[in-house]
């Protein structure tokens, strides 16, 4: 089901949106020498207490309790650990959530990064009131997409204006596609 890293990103970002985050930071760093991809995620949502932090990592928690955070976290944790990588989630009430997951690049169970540009596009356009800072780095080359810069340039024109959407699609196509292929 979560067959792409970018679907996992979509999912943890959806949790952050539910947790009323206003600023979400997402970095993917590919280190070919160490053969490791690291995903770093940070939001400024309502956060969780220690008990919740434990529970959201438990696959048997949540779907029936009415809590808003679901199976997504255990799935991401499972993917990271299956590939020989690591997973950590830290949070405090009122202080948002930080997630770091790493994946071994040469592991046969490593899912592809997948449609990262679609994930970025729908998050940015589908949540115009939230700021996103994306970073995708392969060794020393990096691509940064920060909506605070974009919104500054737009000066009041919404990011979900049809022409802006079209620009973002083309911009991501041009600047991100090559790095992922």
């Amino acid at each position, binding site marked *: 089901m979560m067959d792409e890293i970018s679907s996992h990103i979509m999912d943890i970002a959806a949790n952050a949106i539910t947790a009323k985050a206003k600023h979400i930071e997402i970095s993917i760093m590919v280190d070919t020498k160490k053969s490791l991809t690291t995903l770093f995620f940070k939001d400024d949502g309502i956060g969780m207490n220690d008990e919740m932090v434990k529970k959201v990592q438990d696959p048997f928690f949540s779907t029936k309790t009415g809590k808003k955070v679901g199976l997504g976290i255990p799935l991401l944790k499972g993917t990271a650990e299956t590939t020989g990588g690591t997973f950590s989630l830290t949070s405090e009430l009122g202080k948002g959530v930080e997630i770091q997951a790493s994946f071994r690049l040469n592991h046969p169970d490593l899912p592809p990064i997948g449609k990262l540009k679609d994930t970025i596009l729908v998050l940015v356009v589908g949540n115009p009131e939230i700021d996103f800072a994306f970073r995708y780095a392969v060794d020393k080359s990096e691509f940064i997409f920060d909506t605070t810069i*974009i919104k500054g340039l737009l000066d009041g024109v919404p990011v979900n204006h049809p022409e802006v959407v079209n620009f973002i699609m083309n911009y991501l196509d041009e600047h991100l596609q090559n790095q992922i292929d």
Partner: protein
Amino acid sequence: MNLEELKKIREKAQKDVELRQKGSRIRIVVGMGTSGIAAGARDVLKAFVEEISRRNLNDVIVTQTGERGLASQEPMVEVFEEGKPVVVYGNITVEKAKRLIAEHVVNGNPVSEYAIEVM
């Protein structure tokens, strides 16, 4: 292509921003919980975004929301239109999303065969 090009878009777009701020005519909300994403909600949201941009529908916005609690019907989509009942669609695909834009949003005819609830 660089970010400076946004300034040109801004100048052009600022004219119709005033109009948008009065409120969008139609709001489309796509359920983006874990099960929705696993069922393809991201591609559905992208299809809406693309269609709206391609048709230059200035008075329509698409946003995302969390789990709707009906995993078997994901991806789920709600269409809010002022003065009209909310239509909830289930099992939406990219192709169905394009049809919803053409028939419901542009022509004003909800697509009853995809609707699972009208509120």
